[in-house]
């Protein structure tokens, strides 16, 4: 019973996904009379699912129910619970932002069900400690997302979906190959046992381990959207329905980092091999930040720009992973830096994409040039987007500032001063393209004077995101403590 109990947050999401599909069939049978209630009711069901998942996770903490489940396949610890909150919260905000967006779409039920299923997969990615289960969770997340990306079924969306599917399938295969190597070397699929064998590895097995490590980085690098596995990002971000883009950029990316931390810190956390992958991550971090930011400079489409910026941000998270391999105290610092950054980034990027949903659906364009004068047409949306962009730049008093301080501080403490310098120089480049959007919204003349009013739910989602990132920026202690507690799992 303990197993089911600990699996509860995921289980309830999957159950709710099934309920939504069944309820939709019920509506179809009931005829057109009840049609008016269908969309709000399905949205409410989906939100209830995420809320129940959050509450269940909170209860697990309250009753001290952390532990393993399903004979050592899943470990529900502070790390897994941290991501439970992150993913369920992200899903809730994405669902809120989708309600207005799906007003004219027939397949509402399928959409919500897929979001919930994908969320369950992400949670599972953070909590499984067995290679087989990790792969299952990876596919659960991925397949739901492939469909969601192609959900609009128009040219761009289908193209994006196909691209995402093909590259996603390849990267899964590569990751699986890496896992097979690990299994072949160590004879076990359990991360703990792999870790034991790895710590005793001699020279020969070590080089095989390096190969496995490279495959794993390549496979999961796709999910994390880091250079050189970032090619899909701009096209998919541009083509996917914007709420799905938001979900991809936050949920999927965080899931990638969760599973990478789980595998690399548990199975490959031993001193000699960890310095190898830390170096790889340090180099990838520098390249991701620089390439992402420089390419973002020339983007005219705001979704593509945010896509490149998310590549750059992923590079910043990687700094945290690169720090991990230094001496022991840094282990905690690097991991918790990544976790804290992911938490703030969730609010920031969701807020930015929600603003894009609200503005773009009204002006019918994703071009930054068409954002001219938005501040006149909707002062609050412009303010919200500005705050999110400032947070991405890392300007106080937003959450992004604290996150930037945290990560760069970790880098300096681990003697990676060069990486910190690359990082801060990149923030200068980033300031340019983020502020360009702000500038355009506030100074250019609008094409029309008609005001832009976001729908009620969209507005609510925006308020949650913006207030969240300001509160974290001014009172970061709770999130800091949570991420340090989660990082201590690997201590």
């Amino acid at each position, binding site marked *: 019973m303990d197993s089911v109990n600990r699996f509860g947050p995921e289980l309830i999401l999957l159950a709710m996904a099934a309920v939504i599909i069944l309820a939709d069939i019920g509506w179809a049978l009931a005829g057109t009379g009840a049609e008016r209630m269908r969309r709000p009711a399905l949205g409410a069901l989906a939100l209830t699912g995420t809320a129940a998942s959050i509450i269940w996770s909170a209860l697990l903490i309250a009753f001290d129910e952390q532990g393993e489940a399903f004979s050592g396949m899943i470990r529900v610890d502070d790390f897994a619970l941290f991501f439970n909150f992150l993913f369920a919260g992200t899903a809730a905000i994405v669902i809120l932002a989708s309600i207005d967006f799906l007003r004219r779409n027939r397949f509402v039920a399928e959409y919500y069900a897929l979001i919930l299923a994908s969320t369950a997969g992400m949670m599972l990615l953070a909590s499984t400690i067995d290679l087989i289960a990790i792969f299952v969770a990876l596919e659960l997340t991925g397949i739901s997302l492939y469909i969601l990306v192609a959900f609009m079924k128009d040219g761009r969306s289908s193209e994006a979906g196909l691209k995402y599917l093909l590259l996603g399938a390849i990267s899964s295969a590569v990751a699986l190959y890496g896992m097979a190597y690990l299994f072949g070397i160590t004879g076990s699929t359990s991360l703990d046992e792999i870790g034991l064998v790895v710590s005793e590895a001699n020279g020969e097995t070590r080089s095989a381990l390096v190969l496995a490590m490279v495959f794993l980085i390549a496979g999961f690098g796709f999910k994390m959207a880091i250079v050189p596995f970032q090619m899909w990002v701009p096209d998919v971000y541009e083509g996917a329905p914007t709420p799905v883009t938001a979900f991809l950029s936050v949920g999927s990316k965080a899931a990638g980092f969760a599973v990478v931390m789980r595998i690399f810190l548990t199975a490959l956390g031993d001193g000699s091999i960890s310095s190898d992958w830390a170096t790889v991550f340090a180099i990838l971090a520098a390249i991701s930040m620089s390439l992402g930011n420089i390419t973002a400079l020339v983007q005219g489409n705001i979704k593509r720009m945010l896509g490149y910026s998310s590549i750059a941000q992923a590079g910043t998270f990687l700094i945290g992973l690169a720090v991990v391999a230094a001496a022991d105290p840094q282990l905690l610092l690097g991991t918790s830096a990544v976790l804290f950054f992911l938490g703030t980034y969730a609010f920031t990027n969701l807020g930015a994409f929600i603003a894009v949903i609200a503005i773009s659906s009204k002006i019918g364009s994703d071009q930054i040039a068409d954002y001219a004068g938005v501040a006149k047409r909707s002062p609050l949306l412009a303010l919200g987007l500005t705050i999110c962009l400032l947070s991405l730049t890392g*300007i106080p008093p937003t959450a992004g500032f604290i996150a930037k301080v945290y990560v760069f501080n970790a880098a300096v403490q681990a003697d990676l001063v060069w990486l910190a310098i690359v990082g801060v120089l990149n923030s200068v480049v980033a300031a340019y393209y983020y502020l360009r959007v702000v500038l355009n919204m*506030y100074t250019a003349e609008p094409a029309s004077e008609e005001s832009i009013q976001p729908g009620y739910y969209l507005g609510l989602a925006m308020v949650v995101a913006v207030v969240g990132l300001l509160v974290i920026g001014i009172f970061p202690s709770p999130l800091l403590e949570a991420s340090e507690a989660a990082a201590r799992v690997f201590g």
Partner: protein
Amino acid sequence: MDWVLLALIAIPIGAVLVFMLIPSRYPQLVRNVALVSGFAMFALSVLVFVKYEFEGGSGFRFDLQLAWLENVAFLGKDGISLHLAVDGISAPMVLLTGIVIFAGVFISWNIDYRNKDYFVLLFLLVSGVFGVFLSLDLFFLFFFYEVAVLPMYLLIAVWGTSSHFGTFTRPKEYAAMKLVLYLVGGSALIFVGIFATFMEAGQGTFDLPVLGAVTYDENFQKVVFPLYALGFGILAGLWPFHTWSPDGHVAAPTAVSMLHAGVLMKLGAFGILRVAITLFPEGAQFWAPVLMTLGVTGALYGAISAMAQRDLKYMVGYSSVSHMGFVLMGLATLTTIGVNGAVLQMFAHGVMTALMFAMVGAVYDQAHVRDMTMFGGLAQKTPRLAAFFAIAGLSSLGLPGLAGFVAEFHIFVGAFNTYPWAGALGILAAAITATYILRMLAMVFFGPFNERWAGLKEMRRGEQFGGALLIAFIIFMGVWPAPFIDRISESVEFILRVGASGP
């Protein structure tokens, strides 16, 4: 009295919140709130100054420490707290900020275009400025520093004006972006410096007095000092990284130019003194000749560039570069008298450049041109404007009895004691200053009256009041500098570790 410093930061933030609640159809209400809170800041800053200067006790006073982050491993054992205090150096800076923002509210009275948003950004900027001057915690100093820099961007980009020259134009958006990128670049250097300091000190705190008690390795000091000096120096208009400053000042709306040239550039010089020179005396010794060279170059270069300008506002903008060059020269002497002079110059230049920008704004609002060759004899139509402008100019060229003289005198004495060649070149820069100021006054206000300006009216009453306020302090410091000098030198001696006084 503990609350005073917190109130100085909280009042502008509170005003920002009030502005946001006011519907934008009540512009007059916005102005009144701005006036009341501006006065409150002015009154409190005068109170802080007077209490500090004329009551016993030295070193840091009105100390206030509020815990912000505790029990988190990420930044050391003591966490981070909001630590505010004022000393002989920051007291005049606080007063300066109070004066300039209060005058700035009057000057901004006639802004009609989205005046609510304007005041929101202006007051946000001021809260950051107060925060930097008052913070004794390196983390918060940087925090407020960034808060102060950013509103500038929108203030220039939205309310600013583009400059048109014969063959090309300088759009305000260009100026705004240039300014922000320079300053963000500078703060990136400071950012690295702060964490390097934190690591090297190993005290687990960002508290400046604690960090100041540590003796740092000499090589470390030599590496880190330029990070800070350059990072803060960019904001202080350090040559050759000054080019954002004339463009930014010219593009900005009048009150923002006043705050920016008057106060914001002082943040840079203040940062060099408060952080770099205080923490790394040996690094400062090592780099002082370089800083002195760049300071002198800036002073001369700014003065010569100002000489070449026909645009009134660009002239004032370049004169700011030149005067900030004097400040850096004063800092680079590393002697009590020189650094005293630098702090005095920060105050003196702050009030007089604010006055100059206010007067240029008053002319431009009516004439819509700033080319000084197009004016002539304006003193006949607008005697008060001419008088105010003349006072600012005379203070700028260092006429005894006005604030500029006191400051420059100290700086030149300090410079002659340490680097005589620099002192000589500094005097040369001052002579060029006198030339371009007097030439400008002659061209614009005196000589034959240009009939084109027959319709020109005297300044608005708000402008007159704001100007008079600034003039009062220019004269106050010019004729009775003692309260400034005494307390400044106490704190400076403590920083330079010359005397044994201080906390």
